[in-house]
């Protein structure tokens, strides 16, 4: 256009002033406007700037470290600096535009870097790419924030996963740590999220997350126990070995279930606290039941008896020892010698199949009072010869003066009897006492005297034996057996003379029979003389004998 106007001026010389600003200057203005628009647009459309606090800045680098969520790059670390207290670092990152809605007070940040831990190896990809900050948005949409506390490591449970969080309380943190699995009958259903030591209660507390739908498995009758490692159990059925999953074998874990003898129970709310038992058997051993307390005073030593020791009736567990302490006893009793050791027992009816209710407790109390009168007594017995641990055994013994209900500090007393081992000990001591009382000195003295007498007796005997030897050596004595034999021989000959076949025997028999005959013949004479003494001189006028009559001659 300018060239056209110049040509027309050459043809018609028109002179005009040059006061107008050259149009060429619009170009820079336009450029400036565009620049301003771009700057403005860039400023007003930039993403939010957030501040994250970390314990240290390992792997973090300003201008290089990215911020990612679900592996999508949403920002960049702009600066890394120490906090004012110098006990941590402050990381400032600029996120991409339109990410403000993700930033809530529940958003979580942590540094992803190569890690090798009990939970496994993670973050290997960052070896090449370098560490980055992982970010998970929270649920609280209304509560927008730009200041966050970074996590030390990846959260155990991803945010938004449905499930339930509960608390466990245990005596020891043995082989259970954060990240360890929670299993139900061998199936992985959750994780241990936190572990703390409660200084006041002196217990270890765990926060456990159980995923839905498995969270429904946890009821108010559920018991948790440590399933770490390998457990051996020797019973009448043989030896059983319980192995958890490989993961729990290496790193430990917790499992839970409802005991067979309990109903499933009711659902629980989040944050419910449960006890953590060291193993499965201790769940049955140490469970808390409705119970009735009884007191036993033992004469025997209670060494080996511990709190929690079982109370058995003929091998069936019916309760637990709750307290062994002299402090339970009366002050007056403490002053007396031969003090018996008070032991507090808890009889738990639920252990013998009765419902775990107060009614069962009162029933068992009444029953035990009756049994006490029938001779029920407590005794200490050895549970394990290896460890010397004791348990309290209840059984019936002969009724004696102790078999009556007595009360001590409002607690009924079960009478006690010395254990078999203690009884043997007492008997052995009694025997030893008797030995001690034996007059051993006097006895030994007497034995010595006796030995002296025996010596002299032996000397006398030696002398006698010498004399006997002399007598035996005599020829007359030696001839004695031969003479004796000869005499016997002669006697034999003589005796043969009196044999039934011998002439002498015959003669004797004959003489005897003659003598007999003579006596018989003299008999009538003696009778006659008895009747008539003078019949020898004056003849008796006796007629002829009457004759037997023959049948043929009968008149």
């Amino acid at each position, binding site marked *: 256009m300018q060239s056209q106007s110049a040509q027309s001026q050459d043809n018609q010389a028109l002179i005009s002033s040059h006061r107008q600003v050259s149009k060429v200057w619009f170009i820079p203005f336009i450029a400036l406007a565009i620049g301003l628009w771009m700057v403005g647009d860039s400023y007003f459309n930039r993403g939010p700037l957030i501040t994250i606090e970390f314990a240290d800045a390992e792997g973090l680098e300003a201008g290089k470290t990215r911020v990612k969520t679900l592996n999508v790059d949403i920002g960049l670390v702009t600066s890394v600096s120490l906090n004012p207290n110098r006990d941590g670092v402050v990381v400032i990152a600029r996120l991409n535009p339109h990410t403000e809605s993700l930033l809530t007070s529940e958003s979580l940040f942590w540094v992803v870097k190569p890690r090798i831990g009990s939970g496994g190896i993670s973050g290997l990809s960052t070896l090449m790419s370098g560490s980055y900050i992982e970010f998970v948005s929270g649920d609280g949409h209304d509560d927008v924030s730009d200041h966050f506390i970074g996590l030390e490591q990846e959260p155990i449970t991803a945010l938004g996963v449905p499930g339930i969080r509960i608390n466990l309380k245990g005596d020891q943190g043995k082989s259970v740590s954060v990240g360890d699995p929670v299993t139900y009958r061998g199936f992985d259903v959750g994780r241990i999220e936190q572990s703390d030591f409660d200084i006041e209660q002196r217990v270890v507390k765990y926060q456990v997350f159980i995923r839905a739908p498995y969270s429904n498995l946890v009821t108010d009758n559920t018991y948790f126990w440590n399933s770490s490692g390998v457990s051996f159990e020797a019973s009448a059925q043989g030896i059983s070995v319980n192995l958890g999953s490989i993961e729990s074998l290496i790193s430990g874990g917790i499992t839970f279930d409802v005991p067979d003898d309990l109903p499933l129970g009711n659902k629980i709310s989040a944050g419910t606290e449960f006890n953590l038992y060291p193993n499965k058997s201790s769940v049955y051993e140490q469970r808390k039941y409705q119970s009735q307390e009884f007191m036993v005073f033992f004469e025997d030593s209670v060494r080996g008896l511990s709190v929690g020791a079982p109370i058995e009736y003929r091998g069936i567990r019916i309760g637990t020892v709750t307290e062994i302490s002299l402090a339970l006893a009366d002050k007056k009793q403490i002053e007396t010698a031969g003090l018996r050791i008070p032991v507090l027992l808890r009889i738990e009816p639920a252990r013998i199949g009765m419902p775990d209710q107060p009614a069962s407790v009162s029933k068992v109390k009444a029953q035990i009072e009756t049994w006490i009168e029938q001779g029920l007594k407590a005794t200490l017995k050895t549970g394990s010869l290896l460890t010397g641990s004791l348990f309290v055994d209840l059984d019936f013994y002969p009724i004696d003066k102790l078999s009556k209900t007595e009360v001590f500090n409002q607690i009924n007393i079960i009478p006690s009897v010395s254990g078999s081992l203690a009884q043997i000990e007492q008997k052995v001591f009694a025997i030893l006492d008797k030995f001690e009382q034996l007059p051993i000195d006097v006895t030994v003295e007497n034995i010595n005297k006796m030995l002296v007498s025996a010596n002299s007796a032996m000397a006398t005997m030696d002398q006698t034996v010498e004399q006997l030897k002399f007598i035996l050596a005599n020829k007359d004595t030696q001839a004695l057996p031969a003479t004796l034999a000869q005499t016997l021989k002669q006697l034999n000959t003589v005796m043969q003379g009196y044999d*039934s076949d011998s002439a002498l025997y015959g003669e004797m028999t004959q003489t005897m029979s003659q003598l007999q005959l003579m006596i*018989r013949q003299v008999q*009538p004479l003696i009778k006659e003389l008895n009747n008539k003494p003078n019949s020898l001189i004056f*003849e008796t006028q006796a007629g002829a*004998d*009457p*004759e*037997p009559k*023959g049948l*043929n001659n009968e008149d």
Partner: protein
Amino acid sequence: MKTRVAFFVAVVALLTACSSGKPNINYYQLSPAPTTQQVDLNLPTLFFETISLVDYLKQTNLILANDSGQLYVTRYHVWAEPLEQAIARSMVNHLNQSQQKFRAQHQFKSSCGGQCYRVKLLVEQFYPTESNQVIFAGKYQLIKDGKVIAQQDFNLQQTLKQDGYGAAVSSLHQLTIQLASQIAQRLATVE
């Protein structure tokens, strides 16, 4: 001296005067003499070892019983030998003559050799009666090796046909023979 002789003669005369008109004593033998008989020594032996008499029979005089059961001991009729020997001998003689199954023997010897039986006999009645009867009653035992194998009571009677003690003794002899036969039969059955 003369006076002494005269006194002795006077006494004898006096005594002999009292002993006139007295009946004679008759002696009786139960069994007659045995016949000649050889006995086989290999036969089993039967010993009539012990023959016991009840007390009233232990005398030499014969006994007579009247009808009312009274016993009369005769004065002038006597056994010629002890009655138990007479009975035993009578039975032994009869058995050895009448059979050949065993030999009978009077006296027991401990060494009899082979089979050996013993008879124990108790005689309770052995007399004639006035009512024409002769009675032999009692009991016997058969013994083998010290064990009683049989015991039997017996009561044998025979009618007396002739008068007098001679006939009565003969009948008694017959009764002993009868008993010996019974014993022999019994022994045959128990064997």
